[in-house]
């Protein structure tokens, strides 16, 4: 039902865009009563209506708009419009006029939005799991595999970061070796992400500097599904490192992540193994200290490092 509605919306948009082009070409006088012909932009108060909602929907499907579709043209919509305009080389002014409308229509056609809508994933909690051993990226929806793509992972000397991360950056124009899409991860000790490639033959191998490399066509398919904050787990064998310093809340890095991984191995719940010493990790440390009858300080001291067997 939802799919049908989306298809209908796209069809309406296409028809509207075409009709607009025809009218414009014929030099027809624009009818002010037709809300769909108005230029959409950031105003005070904000513009709102079905046309804004349609715009947000399309931008979202194209991967530029990650917020809720509200039908209100606010700063988030403005940013999405600008990003889209930059991508299609239209003057990046943030206003949706005839040129941008046409570009949207082209983008929809070129990117086969209709087919993308047909393949729209079911609603649910979406996260990505990258298996370093299998060199696959799997989209999970409510923890059930939805789609799996082949990928390349880090070389032995530059391994992909094992752990639980989140998407913190999305971009369409990194170019070069990063292909057509870039989705950055919040790894605290370097710049890692999921991206396309100009070396498609490397997919399925250990070839990258730690990033997750995908075919451009696959990463383009993945891009609209992924939102800022989408969780990404990179799983695989992790090199156990020894820790020789005490750690406490607020610290970040490899050693924190090692503690998190070891806590999880020991049966405690440190939250995401993302190398960030936050509340969940502190709570897990306290729980472990209480379990062993030690003072519950929440700090990783030498006793904890010994109990976890990661003391250098």
């Amino acid at each position: 039902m939802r799919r049908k509605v989306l298809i209908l919306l796209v069809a309406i948009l296409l028809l509207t865009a075409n009709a607009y082009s025809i009218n414009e070409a014929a030099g027809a006088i624009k009818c002010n009563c037709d809300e769909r012909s108005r230029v959409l932009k950031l105003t005070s108060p904000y513009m709102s209506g079905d046309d804004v909602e349609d715009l947000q929907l399309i931008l979202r499907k194209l991967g530029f708009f990650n917020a809720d579709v509200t039908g209100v043209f606010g700063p988030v919509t403005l940013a999405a419009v600008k990003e889209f305009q930059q991508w299609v080389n239209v003057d990046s002014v943030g206003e949706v006029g005839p040129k941008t409308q046409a570009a949207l229509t082209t983008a929809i056609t070129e990117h086969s939005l209709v087919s993308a809508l047909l393949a729209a994933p079911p609603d649910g909690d979406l996260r990505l799991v990258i298996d370093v051993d299998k060199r696959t990226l799997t989209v999970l929806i409510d923890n059930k595999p939805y789609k799996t793509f082949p990928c390349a992972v880090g070389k032995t000397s530059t391994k992909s970061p094992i752990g639980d991360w989140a998407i913190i950056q999305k971009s369409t124009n990194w170019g070069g070796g990063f292909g057509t899409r870039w989705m950055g991860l919040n790894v605290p000790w370097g710049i890692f992400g999921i991206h396309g490639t100009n070396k498609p033959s490397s997919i399925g191998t250990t070839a990258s500097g730690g990033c997750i490399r995908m075919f451009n066509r696959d990463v383009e398919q993945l891009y609209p599904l992924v939102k800022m904050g989408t969780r990404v787990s990179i799983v695989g064998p992790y090199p156990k490192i020894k820790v020789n310093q005490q750690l406490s809340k607020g610290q970040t890095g490899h050693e924190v992540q090692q503690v998190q991984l070891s806590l999880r191995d020991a049966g405690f719940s440190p939250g995401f193994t993302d190398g960030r010493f936050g509340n969940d990790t502190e709570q897990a440390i306290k729980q472990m200290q209480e379990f062993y009858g030690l003072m519950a300080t929440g700090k990783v001291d030498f006793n904890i490092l010994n109990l976890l067997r990661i003391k250098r």
Partner: protein
Amino acid sequence: MLRRLLLFLLAVVVIGTALYALRSRMIREYCINPQAKIDPKQDYTLKVWIGKPVLPNTAGSYVSDIEDLVATYTSNYTNITVETYFIPQLQLEAKLAEAIKGGDPPDIYFNPISSQVFFGELQVPFGLYVSKEQAASWLPPAMAQASANGKIYGYPTAFYSRVFMANPARLTIERVTSEQLATMGWTWEQFYTAVEKSNQPGKPGLVLTNYGDPVLRAIAASTGKPAPFDDSGRLLWSESDIANIAEIWHRLSSIQGLPALNVVNEDCLIQFIQGKAALIGPLNPQLTVWLWNEAHRKGLDPVLLPVPSATEDQFTDLSATSVLVFRQVSYQGHSHTKAAAELARHLGEGLGPILSKHLAAIPYGESYLPFGAPTGQAYSDILRAAVAPYSYGPAPGVANNHWAEVINPLWLGYVTGKKTAGEFTSQLYTSLHNLAYAQP
């Protein structure tokens, strides 16, 4: 006139008889008949709440072990359905309090790590189902810790031991060996002397794992009065008892050359494993097992020593846990309660080995000498536990909450130097006096 009077008298008699009958019926409803039998033609559903403590890596098998134990009961009674709920330890007491308030507690309640046995009037005195012979066979500490207000409320399941671990190669003691101390026990005076004599530069005679609650509890248990109230709710700790507890800490922390005991010792485990520290403690069962294995792995030959005693009676620190039976406000009948009591007995007998496997507990009623003799005796000599309850107060969580919110902060204030011994003593004594709870 006479007719009216007769009618009035008749009405009074009828109403009175009806009220009396109703009262008798109500009393019968709340009176438990332990002689009742489980009716094979009746269907029973028993609700069991079991606490699920933090069990790294073994939580799954803890649950399945208990489910298997329950299944051995239901296999004997096809008409009894047991619904077992595993409740996270942190939520257990709050949920019970809520259930009691609503008049609908579970039939069986088991907190695997708490000593509290009495939770108010909805609890079934389990002693009704214990024969005199059986009660007489229970060890006095087990009986004391399963009882409140002179009645048995729990079926003893297991004990938890708190001990110290010694490195005999480093511990200097006079006239006796570490092994002898393990079996005979020792006093705080012997403990201070041993620590003092074992103290060397860079090699402490003692490292503490904790200076908070476990130390206070260990010292209190060593006085023979682990809980501040007796099982009838009377204040057990006098001002001089509290002063005695404060004095033990004072003597301990005044030993010359010892590293400060009132700061977190971030490497106490390494100090012991590397053979530097002569003594480490207090150790709970989990840390005892870990450290024992680790010390052996590093080539040490450690010995477990009981918590020193503050009296000549050689009390050490061993707390029990018991299976409890409840009824609901809408009493489900004598045979239902009988079925619950039978299940409690079955669980009480079978849970000990499960707690031993997962929490290094000492299963009650079984010969259990972990770590080999004589160390095993120091760990599991139940007869050296105080013949006194470890918990107090009828409301769920009263003891834990009061201890955590009042007693422990006062203790921490004292050991960290923010309060004098005198202030700690008087303030704790006053707070205990102020703790009033309804007598059952």
